[in-house]
């Protein structure tokens, strides 16, 4: 199975880096970004199969980033990952075109499964 290239966006670095490291151990090539702006920079430079985006971030929040990505990078599916579960924001994010809405604490297998599904691979 080919490596997947993942962009992981979260302002909480204590969560972001360990999670990215665990994904790398599962053969996912993982680029991290601590803000929406940095994510957009990374998107300019690299190609990604999928992005995992935190909803609540200072500055450009996850939904803003999602809007931008749907417009400029429609081929990169977005998985929203939030620490503040919300009925309205969850549905709003999916309406904006997010592929999946997951909540922290997230099970690594569950995240991995969503990443693979979004990238069009077989779940197993």
């Amino acid at each position, binding site marked *: 199975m080919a490596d997947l290239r993942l962009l992981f966006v979260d302002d909480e670095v204590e969560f972001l880096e360990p999670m990215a490291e665990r994904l790398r151990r599962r053969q996912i090539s993982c680029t991290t970004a601590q803000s929406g702006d940095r994510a957009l920079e990374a998107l300019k430079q690299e190609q990604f199969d999928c992005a995992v985006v935190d909803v609540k971030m200072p500055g450009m929040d996850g939904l803003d980033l999602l809007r931008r990505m749907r417009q400029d990078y429609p081929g990169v599916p977005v998985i929203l990952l939030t620490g*503040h*579960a*919300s*009925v*309205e*924001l*969850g*549905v709003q*994010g*999916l*309406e904006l075109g997010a592929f*999946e*809405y997951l*909540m922290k604490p997230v099970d690594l297998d569950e995240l991995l499964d969503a990443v693979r*599904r979004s990238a*069009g691979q077989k*779940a*197993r």
Partner: protein
Amino acid sequence: MANWIARVFGFFGQEKHSLPDLDVRIGCFREVLHANNAALGFLAGIQEAIEEGRPLSAAQVRRLVAGITSQTYRMVSNLNRMTGDRYRAVLSRFHDIKARVARRVELPPTLKPVGYVVPLKEVDPSLAEMVGQKSAYLGEAGRILQGHVPPGFATTLPAYRAFMETDGLGDRISRVMEGLSSEDVAACFQVSARVTQMVESATVPNELVRSIQDAVAALPGGPSLRLAVRSSALQEGGPEMSFAGQYRSLLNIRPDGVVDAFRRVVASKYSPQAITYRLGRGYTDAEAAMCCCVLTMVDAAAAGVLYSSFPTSAGNKTLLQAVRGLGLSAVDGSAQPDTFTLDQEARRVLDSRRGVQSSLLRPGPVEGTQRVPVAEESSGDSALTPDQALQVADLAWRLESALGLAIDVEWAIDREERVFILQVRPLSDVAEHAAKPRKGRIAGERALIERGARASGGAGAGAVCHVETDLDILRCPPGVVIVTREANPRFAVLLPRTAAVVADMGEVTSHLATVARELQVPALFATRSATETLRDGEMVTVDADAEVVYAGRVEAALAATAPRSGKGTRDPHRELLRSVSDLITPLTLRNRLASSYSPRKCKTLHDLIRFCHQATIEAMFDLGDSAVRKGQPLRRLVSEVPIDCRIFDLGGGLKPRDDQQDVTMEEVACKPMIALWRGMTDPRLHWRKLRPVSLRGFMSALVQYNFDDDATMRRLGEPSYAFVTAEYLNLNSRIGYHFSTVDARICDTLESNYASFRFVGGATGIEQRSRRATLIQRLLDARGFETDRRADLINARLRYRPPAEMEEALFHIGLVMGYVNHLDMALSSDAVVSAYEEAFLLGNYDFEWGEDNEQESGVRGTGGRKGA
């Protein structure tokens, strides 16, 4: 891959609608199935959270509700995407239900940002989430009763947050509180002392100091101005808790002391009793915020509480309680207030009863309060004249009609006989409590105390422990009967582990009584003499419902009381989840096919989930009610198992044949399916036989289950779909009201081998369904599966075994499926579950639980042999 896609979707080629590409449709189909499983998982999580007694946090409720809502949306949107928006009506149905769900569980977005302080005259209920309920109601009361609420201002949630963020105060507190348990009273005291000290010595940010000083300067009163700084707690994302009396109110504060008072009121968020109370109910510290309500001080000649609607033998009346001096004496248990009963229609005092008050609280000469003895010459008078009582009641009645709800208020009359309202709340549970039935005394038992007022119902027994000081609180062992002079709210910290509370004084309206009722701890107050009569260490039984304390342990009194269901029963988050679950969990759709009803019939998220699942499968295979279409690679399986199974060959799962007829197991080449079917068709299983059911289970099953009239078919439920290759099986089946998935691969590469089994639902109540899931879990555990159960949902998985073992595992799943089918009706108790478990493990697969089994230990059957 491309090959089977072409085979699956060959028949779609003739569709006239403009449908998306094939691979998009396959993706949507897969996502609907995935979202369906995820949604059913949240559904089980919600049911479990409602049924079980563990404390539930606001965050957990939000997670469950947001989870099921977003996954339901994913089903609806993917269904529409794959069908070219054929189900737009379902989408609008979803949005209706979602909006109602969100309204119940989420805060309305704040329309205008607020500063650190808001003048009370600008506060209204729409600001409740910014200033706390106490300030919000009082602001509204000021508008309704011009001039009868003292001038003041509220500090806001942003003010609290700014304070907590300064020097990382909030983070430092979180670290100290980590891992604390409400059971460990000594640790709660230690943490409380430490955190209180941290908060009281923390820096208040300059901008907040200035805001408070400006607000104080804007109040009338000049240099002699004194203020009351009261707590107005804020619970984020959940209903308000009473927290009666657990927070600090500081009275008679000088203008330059308000900033410090703000800090001390915030610190009272960390009193031992507040910490215990929050932990015991599953609130996290971060969810609770503290705002202040700052009021011009009223130098009260008399003060007290009033309940606008209180049940009495003569119908609902208004109840007013009054003490001399500041009103705190009326609720802290230190005095018995004078009581007036008033009639709202006739606008008169019906009855008055004199209380006992030996001391009163009044503002100190410079700052703070002092307790002074009630003067000898006035102790015979009532605190209030009937006319004054009527004036107070009149204000409350105006408020009640303007707010449209029954209320309790705190009021005061100053030395110029002006009446003020100091606090307004929706009427708490006191009224409900007072209406509950009482019990008689039990004959033949020795009563030590036969007077008093039931402050909290129920009965409890234990050794007497006298408690007056904080040191007594620390020394007090669990399981005792607390005996005290005053019903002081400080003792609330002990309630979660106490058998009962008895106090000499105190009213059913006091703070301690409110907390006792919330925690369901029996409490008997106003006994006058308990501290003298009851000896330390002596065993007693407190029957609060009969208002009696017996010597020794009196089983009859304890038995007559329903067992205490624990501190979680009035958990406000559970109540919230329960109230919103009406829109989520019930399944009202009864029909098999999505095409046979309009989406408008979907009343709950569960209905939508089911509808979308069915509609997706219909869209995928265009099944409708017709038989298999020509050219469609879908075959009906003819088998002795009463399941209507359609097989979809993804390649190599069926032996090649030219015609399009039904197939038998002979022609199936899929290894996992063959093994599974061997289990399901084991001759020792009795599939067709109806399991005996207890009458109650049977009735509830009848209510929910439409029995198939077609008895000759006896096909249990809707078509099941098996997707097969030579090595792979995915079987989705709905039988009756349960839903199961088997997903497995068996090949020579060990790392690729797995078998997963998922089972959820049933026709009976959640309790019996959960028992069936438990039975399945145990039967699969016994075979080395990894299992995980939530309410009636069971997930089981086994991986990386050689083919022979994988086949054995699939065989076992098949056996279990056959064994437990319909068992939810029979599983009337945990003992029955164990009997069925034992029978199965002995290979007794046609075991039936009957009335006669209840006498024996259980495993008597007809065809018992050791399983293959």
